[in-house]
């Protein structure tokens, strides 16, 4: 066989398992070997659970005689380290939680385990999911597998780098303002932020609760649909998860998009996007036209306000969510204090990194008496208008296509000095979170050897439509088949 096992997609690996060309143990040990080989240079993991994974794979071989009973059985996967795993360290890449072992599994973890998925470890991230480069991890930065001097994006940089480098077949990330899509774009993989409420957030360490959503990071669109099929659904433990009949995403991929109406919002092309990326997206739109879709330029004039809305709302919610870290119930605790207040202040001072402190301060300020209306309520009102603007556009168009990120992967250290510069990385991805709509990033080309991502957004619960559009594009392009050489 010419293609190494670790470069396969989920559906390709499943075919080998089905035909008993490989055993469960073969598949898992290949991934564990790959982790050993590339992890010293990529550093996409916080924790590797190799022994547990191998034990599970062996038990599948013994009990199932080698054949999987679901799409994900025996397929090794990773989870971003803000998704709670029972008895496995869940750190959020923060000193605050560096020894935290959850007493329960997130709902998505339960679902994947019930499908027979094999956890190989937890993925590195920007601390508490705050960042766009994974440089805010309290432990170590992750390196982009396409160029180790560059960032993988963030905050799900570990998951995106792990999938791209073959250290797992898929990973789950979380996306509050682009944290699945932007790293997927920078690492040349597929990343989906589902509609808010489609996937349970129970067991996801909260950052900004009205924006956070868990989603898959995979090598291609079919894999993305397979994972989505498994993790969606109403959960009594998350009152914001939606009760609805689940679509079967993987079965609805036809590749037929004749008559699909594509809107191209011009504002997303005016935000300092690299010219190579602009050219790439324009060429990709021609591909869609050839496939029978219609492409029209449209305008979403409120786009320019999305960044400000996000950087008021997300830190405000974060400041409330992170107040639970008080050194009493769990997490790091400063022991040498004179008083309970001193203990709390020192716990947070030592436990949180600088970006987390910055956002707590920003949020506390925006929520404080005297500024609450001017910042927080104002941002919530503009949010209403942004949602309405998207809704009206979706009356006439099925999907919207834009770049995912204004640049390809940047150098480690290049943007760490200026927080505002770093925040601009999310300019194309933030609006979908504000509106709560689904959006996917798929590989669409390369610039100087670095992957370019294309974003496809759709209306609420139109995952079927955006996945099928993405799948149609994949059928006639090869970008998703490119693998970095490590």
């Amino acid at each position: 066989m010419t293609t190494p096992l670790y470069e396969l997609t989920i559906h390709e690996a499943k075919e080998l398992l089905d035909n008993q060309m490989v055993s469960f143990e073969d598949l898992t040990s290949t991934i564990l070997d790959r982790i050993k080989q590339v992890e010293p240079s990529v550093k996409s993991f916080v924790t590797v659970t190799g022994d547990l994974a191998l034990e599970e794979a062996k038990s599948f071989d013994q009990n199932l005689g080698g054949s999987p009973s679901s799409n994900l059985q025996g397929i090794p996967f990773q989870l971003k380290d803000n998704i709670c795993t029972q008895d496995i360290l869940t750190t959020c890449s923060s000193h605050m939680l560096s020894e935290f072992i959850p007493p329960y599994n997130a709902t998505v973890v339960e679902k994947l385990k019930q499908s027979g998925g094999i956890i190989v470890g937890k993925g590195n991230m920007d601390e508490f999911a705050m960042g766009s480069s994974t440089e805010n991890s309290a432990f170590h930065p992750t390196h982009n597998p396409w160029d180790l001097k560059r960032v993988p994006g963030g905050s799900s940089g570990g998951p995106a780098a792990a999938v791209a480098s073959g250290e797992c077949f898929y990973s789950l990330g979380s996306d509050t303002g682009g944290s699945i899509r932007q790293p997927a774009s920078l690492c040349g993989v597929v990343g989906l932020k589902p509609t808010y409420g489609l996937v349970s957030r129970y067991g996801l360490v909260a950052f900004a609760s009205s924006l956070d959503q868990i989603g898959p990071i995979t090598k291609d669109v079919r894999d993305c649909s397979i994972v989505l099929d498994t993790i969606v659904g109403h959960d009594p433990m998350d009152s914001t998860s939606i009760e609805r009949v689940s679509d079967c995403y993987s079965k609805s991929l036809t590749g037929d998009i004749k008559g699909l109406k594509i809107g191209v919002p011009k504002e997303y092309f005016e935000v300092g996007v690299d010219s190579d990326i602009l050219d790439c997206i324009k060429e990709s739109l021609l591909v869609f036209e050839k496939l029978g879709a219609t492409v029209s330029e449209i305008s979403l004039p409120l786009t320019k306000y999305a960044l400000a809305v996000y950087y008021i709302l997300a830190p405000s919610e974060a400041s409330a969510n992170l107040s639970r870290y008080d050194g009493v119930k769990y997490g790091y605790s400063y022991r040498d204090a004179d008083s309970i207040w001193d203990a709390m202040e020192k716990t947070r001072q030592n436990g949180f990194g600088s970006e987390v402190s910055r956002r707590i301060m920003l949020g506390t300020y925006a929520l404080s008496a005297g500024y609450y209306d001017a910042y927080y309520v104002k941002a919530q009102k503009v949010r209403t208008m942004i949602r309405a603007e998207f809704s009206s556009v979706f009356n006439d168009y099925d999907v919207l296509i834009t770049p995912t990120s204004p640049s390809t992967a940047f150098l480690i250290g290049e943007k760490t000095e200026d927080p505002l510069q770093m925040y601009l990385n999310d300019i194309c991805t933030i609006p979908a979170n504000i509106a709560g709509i689904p959006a996917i990033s798929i590989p669409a080309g390369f610039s100087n050897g670095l992957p370019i991502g294309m974003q496809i957004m759709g209306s609420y619960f139109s995952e079927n439509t955006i996945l099928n559009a993405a799948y149609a594009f994949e059928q006639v392009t090869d970008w998703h088949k490119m693998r970095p050489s490590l």
Partner: protein
Amino acid sequence: MTIPKISKEEVQNIALVYRLGLSPEDVSRLSSELSNILDQFRVLDNVDTSGVNPTGHSVSANGVMREDEPSQSLPVNKILQNAPSAENGYFKVRPVLE
């Protein structure tokens, strides 16, 4: 409205409200960073939001009700396994009143 620059004293006050410890260097750095960031937010002053209701959640979330049925909770020892300090099945905290 006119947005004031964030002084070091104001940074210290916000930190005190939150009970977030900051070093003197953090205070100076945050004073300038927060001022710069808040400056960017002024762009929202240009949006006419009169008559617009605020949105707290991206998907309209109605109140979710369920039957009040007792069910199994996590055992106390599992809850306390991550506690920095615990005694006799309780979290142990410093005196709140001195």
